[in-house]
């Protein structure tokens, strides 16, 4: 046994030396490639690949005047916090990446963030909207807006556009995104003069039965139903809400922005509105340029997952070039100074490492998303 360990140790050392010897830039990418949220990962991958094709078609990057080969190392996190933390450890200790892109969601980013922070590896997360994510430390950035803003956007939409004064909420109390958005929606909605009359919870994505919750919501006098949950939960929730006879307008957050929601809701989503980072019907020139490039590459329209991962990669790529070295601190400083014109707007980070970005409100019509309006922060 001891001999085996020794042999493994020597082998490991050689492997590490091998990794050192090849002079290349390694970027770790953490996405849900399998599991419930696999469609998030699939859309993120399309955005990333498109950014890669535009910025580094020959898979190289200019670091301090030297052209180095670029290598992306993908890790599947299954949208689970503990697996994300392991993926971060592997990327940092074994692959010795310079930067990490991802993960996608708040719960996973909160679990893994401290590992990168203490190792001094800069991270650009994709769409974890919970404000606590970048509060982990100065190495953690995000490509998306945050929930206080998103919550207020949807609260104002419910109050002003839908004319609702009483709201019901169904949220996942095992998910940081869902909890955060519930809190911020409630705050703004009540500041405006509305009242959240009923809050129903459920304890995790494994739950498929929401009948008891919908029964209570149906008995309340709410005028709008806010469901700040992920696409793979919300499709089923919409289906059950309608089957239970709830006719209230449904609203949600950017967790809904994946077309696969419709495969489960199967018509129940008609008229449901949500906020997200991007609409393919957005009229700004950068957005239209991106939509065209995306359509040419995939014969599909991009959703916000694709846009945000495209932007995350662009931020990282430009920052490494600007830093001119692979040192964690200098890349971090370069990311903090980012000023880029990207599909969803001009990206600049504030002192909490959150980009200032507008939100768009989108509505499901005939199984497709349709642009309603843009809200600036």
């Amino acid at each position: 046994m001891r001999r085996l360990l020794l042999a493994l140790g020597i082998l490991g050392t050689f492997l590490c030396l091998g990794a050192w010897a090849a002079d290349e830039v390694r970027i770790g990418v953490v996405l849900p490639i399998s599991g419930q949220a696999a469609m998030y990962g699939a859309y993120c991958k399309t955005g990333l690949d498109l950014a890669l094709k535009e910025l580094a078609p020959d898979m190289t990057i200019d670091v301090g005047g030297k052209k180095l080969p670029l290598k992306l190392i993908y890790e599947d996190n299954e949208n689970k916090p503990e697996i994300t933390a392991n993926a971060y450890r592997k990327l940092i200790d074994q692959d010795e990446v310079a930067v990490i892109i991802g993960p996608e969601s708040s719960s996973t980013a909160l679990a893994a963030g401290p590992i990168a922070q203490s190792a001094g590896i800069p991270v650009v997360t994709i769409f974890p909207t919970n404000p606590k994510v970048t509060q982990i430390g100065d190495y953690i950035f995000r490509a998306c807006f945050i929930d206080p803003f998103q919550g207020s956007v949807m609260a104002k939409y419910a109050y002003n556009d839908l004319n609702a004064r009483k709201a019901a909420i169904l949220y996942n109390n095992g998910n940081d995104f869902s909890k955060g958005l519930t809190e911020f929606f409630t705050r703004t909605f009540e500041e405006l003069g509305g009242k959240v009359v009923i809050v129903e919870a459920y304890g995790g994505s494994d739950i498929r039965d929401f009948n008891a919750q919908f029964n209570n919501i149906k008995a309340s006098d709410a005028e709008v139903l806010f469901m700040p949950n992920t696409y793979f939960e919300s499709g089923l929730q919409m289906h059950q809400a309608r089957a239970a006879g709830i006719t209230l307008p449904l609203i949600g957050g950017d967790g809904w922005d994946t077309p696969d929601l419709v495969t489960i809701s199967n018509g129940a989503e008609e008229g449901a509105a949500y906020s997200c980072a991007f609409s393919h019907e957005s009229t700004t020139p950068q957005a239209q340029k991106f939509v065209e490039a995306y359509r040419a590459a995939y014969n599909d329209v991009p959703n916000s997952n694709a846009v945000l991962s495209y932007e995350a990669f662009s931020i990282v790529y430009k920052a490494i070039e600007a830093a001119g070295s692979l040192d964690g601190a200098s890349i971090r400083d370069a990311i903090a100074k980012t000023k880029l014109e990207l599909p969803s707007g001009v990206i600049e980070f504030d002192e909490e490492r959150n980009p200032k970005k507008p939100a768009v409100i989108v509505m499901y019509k005939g199984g497709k998303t349709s642009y309603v309006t843009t809200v600036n922060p």
Partner: protein
Amino acid sequence: MEQFIQLLIYGVQLGVIYALIALGYTMVYGIINLINFAHGDFVMIGAFTAFFTVNLAGVGFFPAILAAMLFPAVLSILIERLAYRPLRDKPRLSALITAIGVSIFLENFPRMIPFIGPNFRRFPELIPMRHFYLLGNASINTIQITNIAASSVLLVFLIFLVQCTKVGRAMRAVAYNKDAAALMGVDVNRIISITFFIGAALAGAGGVLYSLTYPMIDVLMGVWLGTKAFIAAVFGGIGSIPGAVLGGLLMGIIEVFATAVYSELGYGSGFVVLILVLLFRPSGLLGKAPLDKV
């Protein structure tokens, strides 16, 4: 009153599904004292079997549920033969760990098959949804009626099989004492295979009913459902068939009522009830206290 009836309907339609799946746990445990952790995954296999039969052959509800019962049942005989039988005379822990291994295999192997994969699918709408109003606003829909009716039919059939047939008598004999049953000329291996067959068939049927109600299927759908059904089996008294039915029903009803009262903790209510029952009745509601054989 209206609210009460409505919640009762929700609880019963969930409870009958728990009961169907719990039966498989309880029957296998009753006969070879093995907690078959892979049982929950037969639910998923049943759901996918129905999904593919409907989408490829375009059949309706009855052929689909039949296929969904048959395929997992045959598969479970195969698994029993390959994985559990060689360990039958080894310590019980070996078989238990093997069962966990089988479960991990059944969850992860279909993920790699390209036409199943890790993503969820929408289960086809086999029963057109219609609502019937009972009392004021309380309503019951066609899918809930299907759940309750199909489960009741299967249950009556099972009781008939166990109580009134030769195979059933042999099953009871093997459960009572395997060696003595073998001496009386009962083919123990065959009876154990039949038990696995029936258990997995019920799980497959449960999978179809569950997917009709919650039309979203993926390879991990059996994990939590299986755990819930296992708790229901323990709650009712593992090894006892009426216990599994009672446990499943109560579990569904308690869960729905607890969620309606305080949704933040509703999902955990089943566990609390389980702990309470085990504290006061360690062998479950209808379970018999184990007799030491001398």
